[in-house]
């Protein structure tokens, strides 16, 4: 299975984040989104990784990026895990049909029946700008995510500058 690459339109999905709420990727258009696929709640590396992203929310929020965790664990498992680790990032349950969203992104591991440890940075227009599949035992850190977000912000700024210059009068309004 090959993971989706930069430049691909991120496939839409809708998955439960709580027993009575769902999150759709399409609802997040206009925002940068970081999808964090991970094998399982509670396993040591995943918790370090999500704990790190939880810690780095101030750094991520500078880019107005929404971080979302996705694994094949059920919603009650996610809730207990998030409560125990004091995680404030939404965790989505790719539980039924199992791993369907991980498959859509090309990061489902048939052998283990879990998602790979994979990162996707999606721009406000819904296009994947950066993706990375980490060896399962290695926590990939946050440098790749932040580099992708920073380069997207740079692009946006230079585009805005080009758009603004021909219409200087708009600034007055």
């Amino acid at each position, binding site marked *: 299975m090959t993971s989706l690459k930069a430049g691909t339109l991120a496939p839409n999905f809708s998955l439960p984040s709580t027993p009575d709420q769902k999150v759709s990727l399409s609802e997040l258009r206009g925002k940068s989104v970081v999808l964090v696929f991970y094998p399982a709640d509670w396993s040591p590396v995943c918790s*370090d*990784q999500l*704990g*790190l992203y*939880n*810690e*780095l929310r101030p*750094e991520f929020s500078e880019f107005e990026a929404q971080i979302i965790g996705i694994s094949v664990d059920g919603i009650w498992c996610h809730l207990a895990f998030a409560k125990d680790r*004091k995680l404030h990032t939404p965790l989505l349950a790719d539980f039924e049909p199992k791993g369907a969203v991980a498959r859509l992104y090309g990061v489902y591991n048939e052998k283990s029946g879990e998602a790979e440890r994979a990162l996707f940075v999606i721009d406000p227009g819904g296009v994947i700008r*950066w993706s*990375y599949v*980490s060896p399962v035992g*290695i*926590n*990939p*850190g*946050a*440098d*790749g995510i*932040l*580099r992708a977000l920073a380069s997207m912000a740079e692009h946006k700024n230079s585009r805005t500058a080009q758009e603004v210059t021909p219409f200087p009068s708009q600034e007055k309004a």
Partner: protein
Amino acid sequence: MSLSGTLAPPVSKFDHAQGHANAPVTLVEYGDYQCPYCGAAYPVVKRLQHALGNRLRFVFRNFPLTQAHPYAMVAAEAAEAAALQGKFWEMHDLIYENQPDLAPDVLLAWAEEVGLDLKEFGTAIKQGEVTKRIKEDRMSGIRSGVNGTPCFFINGTRYDGPAENDSLRTALEEQLSKEEL
């Protein structure tokens, strides 16, 4: 590989370092003063320094995990404020040696124990310069691929093995033999 795990910025004179600047191997730790794994790594690093002597330089950078560890930031501030009086390592060591007792109100007593000018110490913390440095350290850690604490870099490359004496020693010796070729 798009994830490099490479130390940025490299070690400079602004870092807190022990050992020779031209030692063949530099071990950098990104650490959190309240993190129990960093507490466990503290004697490991001491042992490595003892074993490798002049061949090893050790550098400590701040990576406080403030959500998980409410005292990590104040402890880092205390160590950085001590650094302004030339006593970074004294404070760093005292905090790790007494990690179970770490709390905001004992830091002043520790500052006194280390022999700091308490007025200057208090002012340095209030002025926020030390906090700025800690945040810069943390950002440099994020950019370098720090993925938890403690996180070690050997001559600028992230070390992904366990923070234990034997495996760290092996990795450092391997680097040494490369450098000495």
